[in-house]
Each structure stands twice: as structure tokens, then as C-alpha cells.
């Protein structure tokens, strides 16, 4: 029996139900001061719900939460903040129209005795706080103009300014560049040294090994195990997470590449990328690596007609094309699975059927009149093929897990029978099981002769799946490797070089 005081936070047998469905079942969790505790599990395993229970966004239906050994009940996130728990969610919670300094102190701006906001003190405090973190930001910059990494820094500054003893970080690195990740880790280690307790959620196992002390694994809403990270191997972790072993995460098969399907020459768009040229062949997977913000997504959007290019040429199957809208792009056999599933990939409140049939809706209609039976059978076949897990086709997309949502987005684009498929971060934020399925699918599609352009920030994925790798930096292509040449080090240096040279 451990001494209860040992833990700053302790969850005992937490149970949570949503409309009768149990999403957390008897989950226990402990957290010590001065540790980074990783929370691991597939999507839908209950990590986010557990975090929301800790922060008081949800109230548990069973079990107890102890803070410093005393039972606590948080009615809302504000209560938990008062108690020293700060969470940094995937969706950042800054105020885009307020400046950096005020964002740190919003809701508790320092005031004079007369009740006037003491702006001078506020800016001074903000300055002191940020420089103590080693972060340099323009205090009067509006938050909407900050990069994601900068926004996170502001969030962390805010957490520290309320003397948070427990910091929860939900996938903080998913949209950061490598340098930014390094900065973040440096900061996290420092906070740990100063005695803060950190709950760290990430799908990237490498990061956990680099940073975390202990790991707790959840599966299907149930507690699986808690272990020190240096005692558990990578394969073991995956087994704990999915309940089975996944032999090969990146099963790219060798494919005979065919003729050029897509050729891009000197493509530019003012303000986002410049002079981008490459070729993509049938049956080939071309990986596109680089930091977030290097312009990779902008290139994809330009080719797909969402943000048409301002210069350069695009050739499809040898013919020059001028694509100014996604409609045209689809007509040329292009498909684009966007980076942001919720905002660009899906219509969350609508049914699975409506989501999958959307791009090809006209082909399930006669003169504009929808043919229900035709739509249903086509959609059903596609969903079946992708092994979408849902109770029926009229379920709303928002009720599904991240992995299943991604399968729907893929199904919807495969129904357009694309010849060129652009995948933008195809496995971001989805669980290991679905990830393997997506990789297998990519491999199969390539074997069928589809040309695939894969944008990914996950180096193992880029290295494992690509036949060739392009690296972008600051809107330009800086390197080009064959599968054999590409290594983690080479890609990183091509993606970051100039940054180093400039600073």
C-alpha cells in the first residue's frame, strides 16, 4: 500500500456514461509531482474523456478524484483551474482578437485599487513571464496572427501564471515543427524540474520515450496498465494499446511505376510557395516532408484548385490544365484528403451516407433528382470496403471515432475513382489500428496504378511509405531523395537548414 500523499492527483475507478453508453469503465490513474506521465490509447479509448473528467468539463458517473489526497468535485473547468490544473487542448483556447499579454491574463487582469485595469503592470508581468520561459513574442501582437507553436507558448505561459501544479497537454506536438517540438520539450522538462506534474498525450511513441517517465494505457474505455517507460518496449506498448500485435506498420509493397500522371512546373502562389516543380508517376507514392508551414498543404490546395496558383504550370497525363476549383480537379481525376478532417474533410452533423456521396452526388441523381436506392447501395459498398464501424448508414459522422471518420473521408474520395490521390497527413490523430489499415490501403491503391502524393510530418511514415521523398522549406523544394537515399537525418537537415543558417 502506497502512501496516499505520494500522489498529487489520483483517480479511482472512474466511470463515465454518455446516453447509456459507458465510455470510461473503472479507470484509475495516478500522477506524481515532478513527472511527465504519458496517457496512451487508440482513438476512442477514452483519453480525452478522462482529461475532461479531470478538468471538470464532464462529471464522472462513478469513482472519485483526489487532489493532494483530498476528494474533489469540479463542476466546471474554471473550478479545476482554480485548483491548479491547467489543460492545453488540441483546439487551442486563445482569444484571437486580444493581444498576447492580455491572453495570458484574461479574466484576471491586474487592477488598481480603483478597479481600473492596470495595463502597465499587465504588460510588465507578461514580459517577465515570457522571458522567464525563454520565449520571445511581441506582447501587442493579436493572437490570431500567431503560429500554432507560439499560441501554445502563450497557453503555457497562462498555465504558469495561475501557478498550475498539474499541466495536461493533449497532443501538443501534432502540428508543430521539429524545432518547435524541441523548444516545447525543453520547456516541459524545465517545468518538471520545478516540480510540476504533466499529463502528456501523444500518438507519437518516439516522443513519449524521449520525454515521459511513466505511461498509462487505456483501451476501449478501460484501464490496461501503468508502467515506467524505460521498462516497456515499443512493441509491448502497441500490444497493450491495441490488444494485439501489429507486425508491420508500414507495409509498402514494391510497385512497377508507370508513366507520369502529374507534372508540376514552376508552380507559385504569392505569399505561400514559390517555383515548385515535380513529377508524380502512376503507382508511385511521393512523400512530401517538411515543417508545418513550409507550404506543402498550400501546394496541394493549389493543385486541387482550392487556392489557385498565381504562376507556373500543371500537367495531368501530359496535358496542361488550369484548375481553378475543386470541381474541375475532380473532373481531371484528382482527389484530395485534407489535413483538417473536421473543418474540410467532413460535414460532421450529416449522415455517413450524405458525407460519402457528396463529391459524386450528381452521379446518383437523374437530372438532379436523387436516386435513393442507387446512392445507398453505392455508399454501402464503399463503407463496407473501408470497414467503417457504425451502427447504420444514417448515423451522423460526428458520432464516430477519428479513425472511422478518416475512413469515411477516404471512402468518399475513392468513390470518385481518382487517378491522382493527394493525402494530407492521412494518419494524423488516428489510432494505430486504423493507421495500419490506411497504410495498407495506400499500398494497394498504388499497386492498382493510382499516383499518390502523401504529405506527412511523421518521418517514419514518410520513410516507410514513400518511393521518393520531396522536402519543402519556406515555400520551396529543397531536396529530393529516392527511397534508398532517404534517411531521417537528411530529411531533417533539408527541412531546417535555412532556419539554422539564418539565425
Amino acid at each position, binding site marked *: 500500500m502506497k502512501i496516499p500523499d505520494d500522489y498529487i492527483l489520483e483517480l479511482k475507478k472512474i466511470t463515465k456514461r454518455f446516453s447509456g453508453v459507458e465510455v470510461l469503465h473503472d479507470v484509475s490513474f495516478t500522477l506524481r509531482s515532478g513527472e511527465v506521465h504519458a496517457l496512451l490509447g487508440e482513438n476512442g479509448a477514452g483519453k480525452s474523456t478522462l482529461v475532461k473528467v479531470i478538468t471538470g468539463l464532464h462529471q464522472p458517473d462513478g469513482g472519485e478524484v483526489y487532489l493532494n489526497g483530498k476528494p474533489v468535485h469540479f463542476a466546471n473547468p474554471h473550478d479545476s483551474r482554480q485548483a491548479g490544473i491547467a489543460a492545453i487542448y488540441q483546439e487551442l483556447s486563445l*482569444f484571437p*482578437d*486580444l493581444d498576447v499579454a492580455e491572453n495570458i491574463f*484574461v*479574466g484576471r487582469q491586474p487592477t488598481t485599487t480603483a478597479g481600473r485595469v492596470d495595463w502597465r503592470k499587465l504588460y510588465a508581468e507578461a514580459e517577465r513571464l515570457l522571458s522567464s520561459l525563454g520565449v520571445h513574442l511581441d506582447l501587442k501582437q493579436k493572437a490570431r496572427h500567431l503560429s500554432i507553436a507560439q499560441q501554445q507558448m502563450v497557453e503555457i505561459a497562462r498555465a504558469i501564471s495561475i501557478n498550475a501544479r498539474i499541466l495536461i497537454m493533449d497532443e501538443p506536438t501534432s502540428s508543430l515543427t521539429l524545432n518547435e517540438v524541441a523548444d516545447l520539450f525543453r520547456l516541459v522538462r524545465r517545468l518538471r524540474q520545478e516540480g510540476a506534474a504533466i499529463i502528456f498525450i501523444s500518438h507519437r511513441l518516439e516522443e513519449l520515450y524521449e520525454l515521459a517517465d511513466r505511461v498509462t494505457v487505456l483501451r476501449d474505455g478501460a484501464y490496461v496498465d501503468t508502467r515506467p517507460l524505460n521498462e516497456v518496449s515499443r512493441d509491448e506498448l502497441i500490444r497493450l494499446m491495441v490488444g494485439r500485435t501489429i507486425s508491420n506498420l508500414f507495409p509498402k509493397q514494391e510497385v512497377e511505376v508507370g508513366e507520369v500522371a502529374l507534372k508540376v512546373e514552376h508552380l507559385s502562389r*504569392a505569399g505561400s510557395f514559390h517555383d515548385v516543380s515535380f513529377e508524380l508517376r502512376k503507382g508511385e507514392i511521393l512523400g512530401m516532408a517538411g515543417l508545418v508551414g513550409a507550404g506543402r498543404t498550400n501546394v496541394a490546395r493549389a493543385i486541387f484548385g482550392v487556392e489557385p496558383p498565381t504562376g507556373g504550370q500543371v500537367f495531368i497525363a501530359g496535358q496542361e490544365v488550369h484548375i481553378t476549383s475543386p470541381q474541375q480537379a475532380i473532373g481531371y481525376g484528382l482527389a484530395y484528403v485534407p489535413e483538417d478532417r473536421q473543418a474540410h474533410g467532413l460535414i460532421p452533423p450529416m449522415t455517413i451516407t450524405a458525407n460519402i456521396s457528396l463529391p459524386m452526388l450528381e452521379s446518383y441523381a437523374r437530372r438532379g433528382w436523387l436516386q435513393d436506392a442507387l446512392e445507398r447501395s453505392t455508399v454501402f459498398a464503399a463503407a463496407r470496403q473501408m470497414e467503417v464501424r457504425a451502427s447504420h448508414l444514417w448515423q451522423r459522422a460526428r458520432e464516430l471515432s477519428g479513425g472511422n471518420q478518416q475512413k469515411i473521408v477516404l471512402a468518399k474520395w475513392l468513390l470518385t475513382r481518382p487517378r491522382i490521390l493527394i493525402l494530407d497527413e492521412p494518419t494524423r490523430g488516428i489510432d494505430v489500428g486504423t493507421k495500419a489499415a490506411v497504410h495498407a490501403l495506400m499500398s494497394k491503391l498504388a499497386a492498382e496504378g493510382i499516383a499518390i502524393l502523401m504529405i506527412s510530418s511523421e518521418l517514419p511514415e514518410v520513410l516507410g511509405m514513400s518511393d521518393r521523398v520531396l522536402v519543402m522549406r519556406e515555400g520551396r523544394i529543397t531536396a529530393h531523395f529516392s527511397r534508398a537515399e532517404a534517411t531521417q537525418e537528411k530529411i531533417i537537415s533539408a527541412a531546417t537548414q535555412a532556419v539554422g543558417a539564418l539565425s
Partner: protein
Amino acid sequence: MTEPRRPKLAGFLWAVVRLREAGIGLFIIILVGLVTLRVPAFLSPDNLLDILLNISILAIVALAQTMVIITHGIDLSVSSMIGLAAMMVAFVVKQNPEMPALLALLLGMMLGAALGAFNGLIITYGKVPPLIATLGTLSIYRGLVFFYSGGTWINSFELPKSFKLLSKGTPLLLPNMVLLALLAALIVYYFLNHTRAGRDIYAVGSNPEAAQMSGIPKQRVLFLVYLLSGVACGLAAVLWASRFESAQTNTALGFELQTVAASVVGGVSISGGVGTVPGVILGALLLGIIQNALTIVRISPFWQLAAQGLLILIAVIVDHLVQQRAQREVQS
């Protein structure tokens, strides 16, 4: 980097236009210049005073409307609140001619507060979208005006002189209502920029969920802005009845859109989080100047509404183009 340098004057103008308030100010100056060339009497003190008198009420209500819009809401019921409060105050004043005018002012604000509180209640605790809630109370309050008055009017001869002077009297050099509008602008300016409650309004409009997580009492903030909108309307109602020396069943009919127009022209973003007091005042001023200029250069009064609409459209389109360009500059 490779962009050719702009000529100096154009560069300066661009810098001015980018600042929303300066842009409207510039537009006002050009407009005033053009009108004065045509009719020099435009700049006479009498005419300027007339403009100020005309926009005082608009400015007071537009300030409140601005706070509502900053929270990503809208208050369409302002015109009916003014109509109802004006009618009730006028009746009470008519019945008690000896009543001090200041008391009438207070009474109007309290009546307005009750009406605004009702809006606030259904929007915060009832979770009715602001557009719908105030659309509903727009017709409810207007209906109550008829119910209250039985369809009758109150005319100038029924109101005591002290009440009529409440808005137009000039014990302090400028007419009372102009001073009241200025005072309101100062108070709102201080409130929005230098109190926590004022900052909370921006926070709620900028990111409602995050505001709640930061412990900002979102519901109370929303309630407050609708309450304040009611109070402003109550004040405006008394001034209205006093200035026009009457209360009619259709008092202020259609005024709600003018207040929104003043805010929008003044740079308040309809999607919340953005808006300043100087901007709104300039917006109201611009509307007032246009109205006055049309009269003074003898354009048929029937053109006024069309000109107002055109102005809103131009303001919105220009603002959009400027924002787009500024966005592009930030990116490159």
C-alpha cells in the same frame, strides 16, 4: 521584398486606410470638403450643431449596439424599446407636468432596463439565439406600445416645457443631449478599455468557449450587454420624446437597422470580438453628415434612404478589400 516601393503619398494613404478609424475620418473629411465647396454654409456653427443634435440619439444607442455586436450578438429590439419607453414616459410626464425632467430621464432608463433585462434573460438562460430573441421582442414591445396607448399619440402641447428643454436646453454651452452622448461615449470607452467587465465583453465575443474556461461568467456578460442596451434605449427614448416633442406609436420605427449600420460602418465586426468606441462615433457621425449634406445640397429627401444604404454597402466593400490586402501583406 521584390515588391516595388509605393510612392510616398500612396503609402501614407494606405497606412491611414488600414487603421479603420482613420479611414472613416479621412472619408468624412473628403465628404465635408466636397459639400463645403458646393454649399459653404455647411460648415456654419448652426449646421454643425444641427448635425450633432441629429446624431446624439443614434450615437447613444449605437454604442450599446456595439457592445452587443462585440459579443457576437445583435439587438434588433432597440427601436421598439425606444418606442415603448418613450410612450410610457411621455404619458407619465403628461399626467404629472410638475415632475422634474431629470426624474423622467431616470424613469426612462429604468423602463429600458426592464425591457433589456427580459432580452438578456431569454438569450442567456433561455439560450434563444439573439437574432431570434430580439426579433421576437421587436414585435412584442412594439405591440405593447399600441396596447398601452390604445393607438393614440401624445402631441407637443401636452408636454411641459421643462421636458422639451431636457434635450435641447444649453445650460452648459452645448445642448444637453449632445453632452449626454459625449458622456455616454466616454463612459463606454472607459468601460470597454479599462475595466475587467469591459475586457470580458471582448473575450466572450472573441472565443466564447475559452472565455468560459477562463472563468469569465459568459452568461452574466451577455446579460449585461443586453441590459445596457435597454438602459441606453431608455435614455434615448426620453431624449427622443423631448427632442421631437411627441410620442407616437411608430416612434423610432426602423431605427434598429440604423444603429447596426452605424456600428458596422464604424468597423465593428458582425462576427464578434472587434470594435472600438471612436469607430462607432465616427460611424454615427458619417451617417449624420450624409443625411445633412443631402438636405443641404437640396437633394430630394426621398434620396436619403437610398444614399444611406449605398453608404453601408460602400463601407463594407471597402473594408473588405482593405482587410484582404492587409491579410496578404501579413502573409508575405
